[in-house]
């Protein structure tokens, strides 16, 4: 029996339990322990990159144990290439978030790190679980620590933002739970066995009207998390008021829960409903792209601007996904990783400034490149990464998405491209206002440049941005099996050897997919 995933999963939780026994006066001791645990969490996850076999199309590192046998719930963890990347992203961003909090958090230090580490376990569990009930459990576990992170250590309007985040997400997820239950009972009526096994649902052919309902239930849960227009209103508030590390985790990982949910659950389990809802999803995504970008352009608050850029970028990710072809979905997945890197870094950068000046008003800044050259350089790299400049990571993702969307529908591609242009506009405008020009605010004259610790939080992100930008092949190779799994269900005409076929009627889909799933069920 292989316990590797469990070790990754529970390392942060063990660290949180450890912190419980440290005296809360010993703040530096707590910081050291939290940093070591978070770094350890990343280090134990690194072998996943090497041990994961991209050639093997099945879920790997499978762990299965009975959990609540009378209802068929299992402790079932496994990963594919997509979740491998997300787990690595989560553990890395987790340790960066912990490191970035060293001097920013001075109150209730112990609780802060405990919540951060518990949150980490929740996120990792959601990416690993292939039992639907277990997935839901981890999904909900994330809610409370994040609520506290915003509510206790946030800025001015934190109580409002925290409860808004909490209730929005909660409503989405409880409705999703009903979808899960509907799926579960349907599964029983077909197989006669109670089970929450996701891989089993991925091989099932549900009647269309049931798919329709379940798709909407899942849609509410995932779309709020992404967040898609019109469910995005919690995001700017939550981001603006969250402490830096909270924003980083929120942007880099929590938003990926939604897109992960679509790719892992909605698309492969509900292929017909997915195809049926393409117009709605595309329209909402396009509105999100353009609207998010326009609102970002109008922001006076630095952090809010980045938050709205998230809305726009995540909408692009959704558009690529719902192109429903291999290139679009691959682009969508890569762009999720990129968004985690670049937006995570942008929030860190805002946090660095906020810690020095305690204001997020863009008009308070100007000419910082003269005072803080290293900071300005890092900011430039991340701005370019966010815009999608070639040789940096953003370009790869946006290019693949555009390519996929173009194949699917040229009009959509026009809108997607316009979002990218607008993205360049608001990011460069921001850069110009804050970094260039004269230092006209005396408060900015004596600002310290990045410290060694702060630079250490950015270094891995810059390296990754360049790596993915120049040589994305190892990443694309790893997600290939994940893309194929989805494509085999939603667009079987793209499956090699199946070319030219129109979207197959249910019976043919069944034949195509059972053939594949029998090749090696992950038992």
């Amino acid at each position, binding site marked *: 029996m292989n316990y590797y995933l469990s070790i990754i999963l529970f390392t942060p939780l063990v660290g949180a339990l450890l912190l419980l026994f440290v005296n809360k006066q010993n703040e530096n001791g707590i910081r050291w322990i939290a940093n070591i645990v978070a770094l350890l969490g990343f280090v134990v996850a690194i072998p996943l990159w090497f041990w994961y076999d991209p050639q093997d199309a099945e879920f790997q590192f499978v762990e299965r144990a*009975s*959990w*609540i*046998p*009378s*209802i068929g719930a299992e402790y079932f963890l496994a990963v594919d290439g997509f979740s491998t990347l997300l787990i690595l992203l989560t553990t890395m961003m987790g340790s960066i978030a912990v490191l970035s909090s060293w001097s920013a958090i001075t109150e209730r230090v112990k*609780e802060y790190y405990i919540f951060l580490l518990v949150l980490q376990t929740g996120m990792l569990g959601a990416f690993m679980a292939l039992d639907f*009930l277990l997935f*839901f*459990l981890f999904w*909900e*576990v994330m*809610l*409370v620590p994040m*609520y*506290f992170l915003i*509510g*206790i250590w946030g800025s001015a309007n934190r*109580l409002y933002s925290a*409860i808004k985040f*909490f*209730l929005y997400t*909660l*409503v989405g997820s*409880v*409705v999703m*739970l*009903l979808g899960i*239950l*509907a799926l*579960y*009972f349907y599964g029983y009526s077909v197989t006669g066995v109670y089970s929450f096994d996701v891989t089993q649902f991925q091989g099932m052919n549900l009647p269309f009207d049931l798919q329709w*309902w379940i798709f909407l239930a899942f849609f509410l849960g995932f779309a709020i998390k992404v967040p898609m227009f019109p469910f995005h209103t919690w995001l700017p508030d939550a981001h603006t008021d969250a402490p830096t590390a909270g924003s980083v985790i929120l942007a880099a990982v929590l938003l990926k829960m939604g897109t992960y949910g679509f790719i892992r659950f909605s698309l492969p389990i509900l292929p017909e409903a997915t195809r049926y809802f393409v117009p709605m999803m595309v329209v909402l995504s396009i509105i999100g792209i353009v609207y998010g970008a326009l609102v970002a352009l109008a922001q006076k608050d630095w952090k809010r601007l980045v938050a709205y850029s998230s809305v726009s970028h995540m909408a692009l990710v959704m558009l690529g996904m719902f192109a429903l072809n291999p290139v679009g979905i691959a682009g969508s997945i890569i762009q999720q990783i990129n968004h985690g890197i670049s937006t995570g870094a942008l929030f860190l950068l805002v946090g660095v400034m906020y810690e020095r000046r305690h204001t997020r008003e863009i008009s308070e800044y100007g000419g910082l490149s003269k005072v803080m050259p290293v900071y300005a350089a890092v900011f430039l790299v991340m701005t370019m990464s966010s815009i999608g400049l070639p040789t940096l990571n953003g370009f790869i993702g946006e290019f693949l998405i555009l390519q996929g969307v173009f194949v699917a529908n040229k009009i959509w591609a026009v809108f997607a491209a316009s979002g990218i242009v607008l993205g360049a506009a608001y990011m460069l405008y921001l850069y110009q206002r804050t970094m260039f020009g004269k230092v006209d605010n005396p408060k900015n004259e004596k600002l310290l440049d990045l410290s060694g610790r702060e630079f250490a939080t950015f270094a891995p992100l810059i390296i990754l941005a360049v790596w993915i930008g120049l040589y994305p092949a190892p990443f694309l190779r790893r997600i290939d099996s994940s893309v194929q799994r989805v494509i085999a269900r939603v667009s079987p005409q793209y499956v090699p050897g199946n070319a030219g076929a129109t979207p197959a009627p249910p019976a043919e889909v069944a034949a195509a997919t059972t053939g594949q799933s029998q090749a090696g069920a992950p038992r």
Partner: protein
Amino acid sequence: MPPGVLLTDFYYLLPELVLTAGALLVLIVDVLLPRGSRGVMWATLAVLAATLAALLPFAATNVVIANGLLAVDQFALFFKVVFLVAAILTVLMSVGYLEVEGASPGEYYFLILCATLGMMIMAGGIDLITSFIGLETMAVSFYVLVGFIKPNQRSNEAAVKYFLLGAFSLGILLYGMSVMYGLSGTTNLRAMATVFAGQERDPLLVLAVILVVSGLGFKIAAVPFHMWAPDVYEGAPTPITAFLSVGSKAAAFAMLLRIFMEGLPSMNADWRLMFEVLSIVTMTVGNLAALTQSNLKRMLAYSSIAHAGYLLMGVVAATPRGVAAMLIYLFVYGFMQLGAFAIIVMMRRRDVIGDEVKDLSGLHVRHPFAAFAMLLFMLSLGGIPPTAGFMGKLWLFGAAIDAGYVWLAVIGVLNSAVSLYYYIRVVVFMYLRKETTGSEPVASPALAFTLAVTVVATIAFGVYPRLLFQLADASAGSLGLGGILTAIR
């Protein structure tokens, strides 16, 4: 001995007999011991523990005794365990509370034992007369207990209100029962089911269903029969409020399940419709009213009304799964509800009443463990994993969907999202507000033990509920309804 009652019946009555004898013993011990001694509490705990032990031989029993008056089955057993555990925790949190209130224990513990006895009879009764006697035993004990803090006006008012409305509702219930008897010629529920099985739908029987639903609706505090609950919950001594909201509610649900599932399966179309409406109204009104409460006990009263609404989903489903879900829910609800009230008991000091939400301000500094425990209970009541409340809700909603009541489940989950708003408000006060003045809350050893048990149970049944699910399935299967329910479906 009356005809049909066998000597062996007394063997099956062992737990009830132990409890009765023990209750009388407690009454005597109370007289003999000096005032202020805690001996009575220990005696009460010993009696409850002995009763719990006396249940052991009947773990797999499934018989009908005393000429069809009582069933000794796993369904009854499950409920008896719930009652006894709730009674034990109530006693543990009572001792310090009574001392702070300056009330002499007197018959307090005796009455708790009597109420428990009544509940146990309600759970086992498959005859209208037996069930009613159990209900009366419980209700009368509670009338006294609610008004037990004699110098306190709120307590007195609550008792009078509870008594008057209670007596009225019992009358309605009894009227419904008499119609049932008149139409069937028997008071035995199982015999009644066979009589009604082949008959046409009788309008009089519909009337009986309406009356019985109203009468029992009062006991489970379903809207619109809930008016008494907030006032009584607020006025009653806090441990009694806890016991009332857990024990009395569970017992009423046990009786309700017995009457409708065992006695009136032929009328299921009618009562399911009624309960469907009641369920929706109860959870919605309960939650909306709880949103505006500033008093913790009132808030928990409305929240417990809402929980009755969730529980009714299991009755509406009317499947073994629905019943199992109710058992699971009542079991875990007992722990989280008692735990929350234990916190309120703890907040009661000489100088502070401590039942306002704002009294919890900054609790995380003053008493980190209590704050964490309360956080857990609130999340569990709201149904957030990995707490026990989530597993309970999951299965109630699951049962509703399984039985085809998808919309009911949708309303249920939306309600639980609404409820989080007021549960989280408590958390906001504990963790996000500055602390208030007043003496520090201190948990007595007995109270600390209560909290520890409820915290552990709330987490354990949330993370690893396999045994609970198995027991609930077995118990639901023994509701003499295996055959009857398949007839319904």
